[in-house]
């Protein structure tokens, strides 16, 4: 059976859930955002409460027009949206909130580790291999900190083309220099060489034009190539920036939103049936203030959205305990309240979708509640 792959797309900068998936025809939102809430969202139908819950009133939510490429996946039941989701980090700091979310509660310390790393260390199955986890870019994100082995690459071909593969004696010397010492540089060097060797054996494939020319599309194309090459990829991370819309949000948000949606749509189309073995998680460190600022942007807020796309996702639904936007419901000074903890979503992914029996170690100190996001629809 092919590996199951989690692809984490982290929207760095605090993506505005209230703009990406806004309430339909909400007079309060129009009052809070007189210049921002102008374009009509794509209706998604009534929201659902987390599994087994009743009582919280449903809302009508819609999709930002630039996210239109995601509609087919939603209608096909492969894309689920979770709203009013976030963390307990109330600093409203990008960096603090990102680190906390990626470490999932485990603070930096003697053995800092990320949630993906802990999952790879605790899941059942064969030992993680060289390409079990891949960070697309130039650095390892906190979610993969202390992972068994992480390959960092922007492009498989570029990595393989490095001259070390052309001079076997040099390659041997380099391997000897990185010996067997338990030292971060030695380990990183060994991991990199093993990854290069393994990747050199995969066949380059033609990249779908639908990915476009932006780094985000290229990154997804690299992940798709690794999935198809069946190298045992279990976790891939991709960052997408551009969400820190303090200024002129109504135009500033269009490009990252379109980039996200077109990229994910191209990825889904490219993988086709192989999407069954993949789950894409889209998350962000914080949402944005419910009311606009004097620069027609929004400042840092609290809750935002998460997206889940792929096999085993009970899609076509928006799951939320919608807190509402009236003044009494907002968290001062005016932020959408967090009513679903991001760890509930990730814990369900790890426990239900991936069948881990050690969710408690992946999310220590957290007792996850059931949301019903995975399983047969």
């Amino acid at each position: 059976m092919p590996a199951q792959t989690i692809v984490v797309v982290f929207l760095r900068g605090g993506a505005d859930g209230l703009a990406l998936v806004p309430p339909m025809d909400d007079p309060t939102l129009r009052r809070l955002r007189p210049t921002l809430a102008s374009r009509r969202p794509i209706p998604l139908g009534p929201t659902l409460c987390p599994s087994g819950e009743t009582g919280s009133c449903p809302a009508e939510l819609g999709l930002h027009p630039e996210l239109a490429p995601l509609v087919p996946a939603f209608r096909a039941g492969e894309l689920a949206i979770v709203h009013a989701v976030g963390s307990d980090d109330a600093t409203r700091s990008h960096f603090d909130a990102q680190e906390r979310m990626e470490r999932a509660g485990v603070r930096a310390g003697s053995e800092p580790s990320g949630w993906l790393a802990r999952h790879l260390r605790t899941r059942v199955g064969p030992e993680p291999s060289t390409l079990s986890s891949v960070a697309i870019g130039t650095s390892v994100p906190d979610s993969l900190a202390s992972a068994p082995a992480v390959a960092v690459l922007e492009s498989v071909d570029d990595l393989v083309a490095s001259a070390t593969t052309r001079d076997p004696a040099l390659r041997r010397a380099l391997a000897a220099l990185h010996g067997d010492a338990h030292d971060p540089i030695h380990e990183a060097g060994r991991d990199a060489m093993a990854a290069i060797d393994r990747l050199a054996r995969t066949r380059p494939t033609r990249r779908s034009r639908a990915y476009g020319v932006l780094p985000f599309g290229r990154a997804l194309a690299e992940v798709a190539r690794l999935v198809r090459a069946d190298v045992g990829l279990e976790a891939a991370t991709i960052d997408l920036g551009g969400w820190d819309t303090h200024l002129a949000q109504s135009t500033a948000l269009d490009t990252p939103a379109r980039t996200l949606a077109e990229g994910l749509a191209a990825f889904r189309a490219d993988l086709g049936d192989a999407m069954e073995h993949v789950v894409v998680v889209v998350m962000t460190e914080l949402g944005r203030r419910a009311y606009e600022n004097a620069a027609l942007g929004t400042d840092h807020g609290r809750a935002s959205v998460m997206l889940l796309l792929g096999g085993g996702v009970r899609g076509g639904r928006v799951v939320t305990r919608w807190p509402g936007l009236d003044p009494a419901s907002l968290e001062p000074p005016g932020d959408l309240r967090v009513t679903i903890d991001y760890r509930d979503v990730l814990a369900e992914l790890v426990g239900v979708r991936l069948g881990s029996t050690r969710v408690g170690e992946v999310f220590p100190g957290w007792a996850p509640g059931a949301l019903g996001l995975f399983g047969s629809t």
Partner: protein
Amino acid sequence: MNRREALVATALGACTVATAGCDRVVGALARASGHGLPRTLRAPSAAHKSAARHLLDRAAFGPWPGDVEHVERVGIARWIDEQLAPSHIDDDACAMRTAAIDVGWVPADLLFELRPEDIERQLVTDTLLRAVYSRRQLQEVLVGFWLDHFNVAIGKSLCSHLEATYVRDVIRPNALGSFRSLLGAVTTSGAMLVYLDGRDNRRSSRREVPVPSPAEGPNENHARELLELHTLGVRSGYDQHDVMEAARCLSGWVVDERWAPGRARFVPERHDDGAKTVLGATLPPGHGARDVDLLLDVLVRRPECATHVARALCRHFVSDDPPESVVRSASASFVRTGGHIGQTVRTILTSPELARAVDQKVKRPFRFVVSALRALAAETHARLDVGDALARMGHAPFRWPTPDGYPDHAGAWLGTLPARWAFALALVEGRIDGTSVEPPALVRALATTDADDTTATLFAHLIGRRPRADELDPVVAYVETTRRRDRALALMLASPAFQRH
């Protein structure tokens, strides 16, 4: 005409004759003026780095050949004194190399005549040339540090132009002096006001605010990062209310785009001139543009600010997770000297904690590249290729997108090893445009007698100590089987030992 002007005039004169050879002429002149390879060098023979070498690995971008001997000659304390007074250090040789770079001298408003991509290329070249060739090494190390601490990403809007004056007129002149002066210059710089949207932070004209809030919704971006990153640090006691009040203090600053492009200007009508309360301190109404100064005074006087800045410096100079004891002494020094950067740095550089932290830092790609070029006394014009190599390692100067600056801990950079190996190979094989190294000259200066010893001596020169057998043997074996001495040199640069400093 003084010596520098004479040299520059000669160099530029030669350049008009043969543009293609300009770099070579300047390089040769720079070497002739006393910045080349010394005739003789002493390779380290001890198993551990000397104190002088360790200092140069932290307070400089690694030694230029002969630097260790120089530090040992003048003594560590005096060398630090020299470095803390950069204007007294003769840096003509480096100035000659950077003289023809527009961004180094063109007046602020004329910079807008240049294309953004040219400005960026020139800035990267200027930064690299100074890091490799300047004798004011500590100043350049601190310029790099502050450019992370007060990061302004060049890709955002007018920053493509403003970055040039930001580095030249805001950061470099203030890099070693008073933190308060540096902070003041940064906070009201055109670059920062554009980058963190401060120029769009104004008193709201909206009467009715839908949600009860102490401020009328000015733009909080700049204020939040001022507290979180620039001065106090996250979770240091301020809250959302303080951020909003600080934003009110900062309101009203704009950046001119027409008459004096890039210049920051205060517009009273856009300023919220009411009373403010920040961190328990009351700022009376009616102070207009002075609100910024009052706010910064409040922040810099907080003990959290001293600790935050001291910790960042210790992380940079000592180790990724510096001992609390050195953070405390650096912080005390900061407080005692009224926030003097140079004195705080001196405390760190002379601390026992630093002495014990040999090789505990992993070089970031910029330092990896620069330290290699310095160790080999490379000749480089530092244009496109070197900058591109840095981009492939994820460390292109001025390109970090978010306000926290490039990470200053090893974990973030361990994925860059293959790109470092590729750079090392390209460097020794002469595949980096405008960049050359001459290992034979270095070997001659190191005066090794027999061939077997050459590898060990060169390796020791690069890493500042005698290589261990497990480090040396793979390289020696490679030379024996292939006879490729150039690639053997690349192996040394690619070795784990050379990644540490």
